[in-house]
């Protein structure tokens, strides 16, 4: 009765896509307009925090090895931390802008966990390729939220942050459990899905 792993990835990709669209809109209109309605300021940090909470059942039900469990658990922790810090900042409970450093931390931890927990080489199968690609995307793009902690009102950096989040969403949507990548599929990967 449990969904396939690829379906869980697609579900999270949809949530990340919504966060990316909100970040893009915020970058276009500016924080002042974006925060004119109270509910809107909590929207994307709330979705991010919620996805962190939902990663715990994913860790419990979908991990088939210790290293997978650690990876999913660490994503749940850093996403809840960064989403929660952002909620605290927009609510006014947290005042120091350095709380925004939780985002580059989340990106770095997520990226390293992606790279470390993928045991197969890049062209083993599509999921392996995407794990490596997502890992390096997160590690390299961690510089964007890092710079945002210093320049939180920079429209260019906000747009870049939105673009990274949308890119992650696209990569997750491209995931399949067993599928070729650029024509490569290891014979030991298993039977290809439709």
């Amino acid at each position, binding site marked *: 009765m449990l969904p396939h792993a690829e379906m869980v990835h*697609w579900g999270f990709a949809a949530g990340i896509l919504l966060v990316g669209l909100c970040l893009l*809109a915020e970058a276009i*209109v500016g924080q002042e307009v974006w925060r004119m309605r109270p509910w809107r300021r909590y929207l994307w940090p709330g979705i991010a925090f919620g996805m962190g909470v939902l990663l715990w059942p994913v860790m419990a039900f979908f991990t088939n090895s210790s290293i997978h469990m650690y990876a999913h658990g660490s994503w749940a922790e850093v996403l809840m931390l960064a989403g929660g810090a952002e909620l605290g900042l927009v609510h006014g409970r947290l005042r120091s802008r350095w709380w925004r450093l939780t985002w580059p931390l989340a990106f770095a931890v997520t990226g390293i966990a992606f790279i470390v927990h993928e045991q197969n080489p890049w062209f083993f199968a599509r999921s392996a390729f995407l794990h490596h690609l997502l890992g390096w995307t997160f590690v390299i793009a961690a510089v964007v939220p890092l710079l945002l902690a210093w320049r939180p009102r920079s429209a260019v950096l906000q747009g870049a942050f939105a673009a990274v989040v949308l890119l992650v969403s696209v990569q997750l*949507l491209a995931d399949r459990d067993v599928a070729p990548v650029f024509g490569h599929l290891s014979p030991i990967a298993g039977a290809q899905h*439709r």
Partner: protein
Amino acid sequence: METPFVHQLPADAVRAKRARAISLIGPTTVALGAIWGILQPYRVTLLHPRGQGVWWLLIEPPLLVAVAGLIFALVVAKPLLSDLEEHDAAAR
């Protein structure tokens, strides 16, 4: 010939561009989901639902993209556009 309003055009043009960009995000996302569904119809199991499990019917990537765009357009973009208009009117 006097053109007393010309100096206001750039700011108005920027405001119009922002509003147009916001109003385009949702429909563009929905269109991308629809195009994906057309290019890979086998990913949309609602088109051939017989024999599909519940998860295959619920979670279909092209539809998820389209739904995300629809939710953004209706829940986020619509009130955001009215706030943007209100903010710009106050700034004029």
